[in-house]
């Protein structure tokens, strides 16, 4: 029984984290049809910026709401600046080129971002652990969970609801969905697709940075944290269906629970689990769980 609770809670915490780092990637995938490898760089930037802000804030006056606000500020600031620079300064020159070129240019951007990070912050470890302990703990039987971990679930739910509302209940959201569904048709009916592309990319980047910002208090922040995240986030996006937000949600939950179950029941499988799920899903459904319908032409 306590095992089940453990798997469920760990799985959901893990799923929330996965969703938070993957949601921006899938959003960009949906609108721009590109796989943004630089997402990993944004994650790292978000983490570094958060740690910096938190270290500037007087430790005595750091409360939970303040630290969450700092994370949000860091994510929005960094995501907007870097995202805009990438899209306006780099990506727009290669729109319309081969898919592979688009992917690789983001890969190059990722390499560059990695070293720019080192240029700005140096190759030292920085940390922002304070928010992790600020929220305290919750005990369930013999298990103790960190409230910060649990709060990730809340944030993930908020993001999901917020996105759902923005995409289905606002005019701009509806137009964006039109762009996702059929780019050319959207162009024909007069939607400024270019501007939606830029905005979406920046929003995606902000989510990427937010993922890093929220992770910052849990990990020690150092060069190289982005490279692992890309492949994990990418796996979640692919499992869910590239460009599908419900897909990313379901993919995260699936992978999160599978991973938690593996840790508790079959620790040897843990490293694999995400790729096993990914291979299995792709082998059966190449588009992933929720593929946005593609129009097939003769």
């Amino acid at each position, binding site marked *: 029984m306590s095992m089940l609770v453990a798997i469920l809670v760990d799985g959901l915490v893990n799923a929330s984290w996965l969703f938070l780092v993957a949601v921006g990637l899938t959003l960009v995938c949906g609108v721009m049809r590109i796989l943004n490898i630089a997402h990993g760089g944004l994650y790292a930037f978000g983490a570094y910026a958060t740690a910096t802000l938190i270290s500037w804030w007087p430790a005595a006056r750091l409360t939970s709401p303040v630290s969450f606000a700092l994370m949000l500020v860091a994510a929005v600031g960094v995501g907007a600046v870097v995202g805009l620079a990438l899209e306006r300064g780099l990506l727009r020159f290669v729109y319309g080129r081969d898919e592979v*070129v688009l992917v690789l240019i983001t*890969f*190059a951007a990722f390499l560059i971002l990695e070293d720019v990070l080192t240029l700005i912050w140096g190759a030292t470890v920085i940390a922002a652990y304070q928010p992790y302990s600020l929220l305290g703990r919750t005990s369930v039987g013999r298990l103790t969970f960190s409230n910060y971990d649990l709060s990730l679930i809340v944030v993930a739910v908020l993001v999901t609801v917020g996105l759902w509302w923005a995409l289905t209940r606002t005019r701009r959201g509806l137009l964006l969905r039109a762009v996702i569904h059929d780019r050319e048709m959207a162009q024909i009916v007069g939607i400024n697709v270019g501007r939606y592309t830029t905005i979406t990319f920046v929003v995606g980047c902000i989510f990427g940075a937010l993922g890093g910002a929220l992770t910052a208090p849990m990990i020690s922040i150092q060069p190289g944290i982005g490279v692992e995240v890309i492949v994990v986030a*990418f*796996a979640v996006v692919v499992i869910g269906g*590239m460009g599908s937000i419900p897909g990313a949600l379901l993919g995260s939950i699936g992978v999160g629970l599978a991973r938690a179950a593996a840790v508790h029941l079959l620790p040897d499988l843990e490293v694999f689990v995400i790729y*096993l799920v*990914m291979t299995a899903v792709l082998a059966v459904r*190449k588009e992933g769980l929720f593929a946005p319908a593609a129009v097939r032409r003769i």
Partner: protein
Amino acid sequence: MRRTLLAMLVLAVALAAAAAFAPGWLAFLLAVVMAKSLVVAGLVVMWRAGLISFGQALFYGVGAYGAGMLGMRWGVTDFFLITLVGAATAGVIAWVLGFLVARYRGIFFANLNLAFSMLLFGYMVKSSTFGGTDGLRAPIPTFLGYEPGDATRVGVLLVATTAVVLPLLALLHRFLDSTAGRMTTAIRDNEIRVLYLGGSVRRTIHLLVVVAAVLAGAGGAMVALAIGHIDPDVAYWTTSGEFLFVAVLAGPAHVLAAVLGTSVFEVIRTYANEYAPQFWQLILGTSLVLSMLFLPDGLWSLAGRLRRVRKEAGHV
């Protein structure tokens, strides 16, 4: 074809000269470049059919680990035998996976390949048979019974690698002129037309996957023998990404472009590391961005531009 053969001949002579006279590090670099360019050539061939693989490191890794296992478990040290087995193993695995993979196109093809390669990576990290993350030692190669000393080994390695790579590239070049090879472009342009001409798209793609895997397997085995050590990084996604990078840098125009692209890539990397050890990724990334922006058809297109410039100059 004749021009290509001639170019290859000249290249072979140049490499043989390098093997004899160049400093060891350069001969070694060239050997690695030649071996890696096989992997790139395979990617380029798939790319001609519009297929991008994010998981070519799978076959590269299979070739590399095959070399290590052959040497360490069964005491095989012959360079050519190991390369052959590495290539064949990768080919067989590709043939099996091909039944599934050949149904996939575009990003889905890339994704599934990535998933397979990451599975291999995950397995290699865990597996004590394959040395876990510390990896596996590759044997010191012998060459058809000849065992070079420490001083000559690198030179011999370069000659042997060239002797494997250039004939394979020539074969590949010939394949690209064959009906099946020319179908690559046809498939990228219009699969439906290929089907309605009675051509098999799936079988052709399956063939391409196997061909590229054989090349990657051979390349992986030769790089492993050159380096002397194999670790799970050979199957990691960044390795696939790097090969893809070089493929785009090279351009799909010609099989020899793969050699050119790989050389440029390795030279940039070596010098970036020397002059900015902390920022070589920045330099690498920037040069790749610049090449993609200003040389959209790859480095090989420089040759065409040069020719045009010279022609115009000649007319004046």
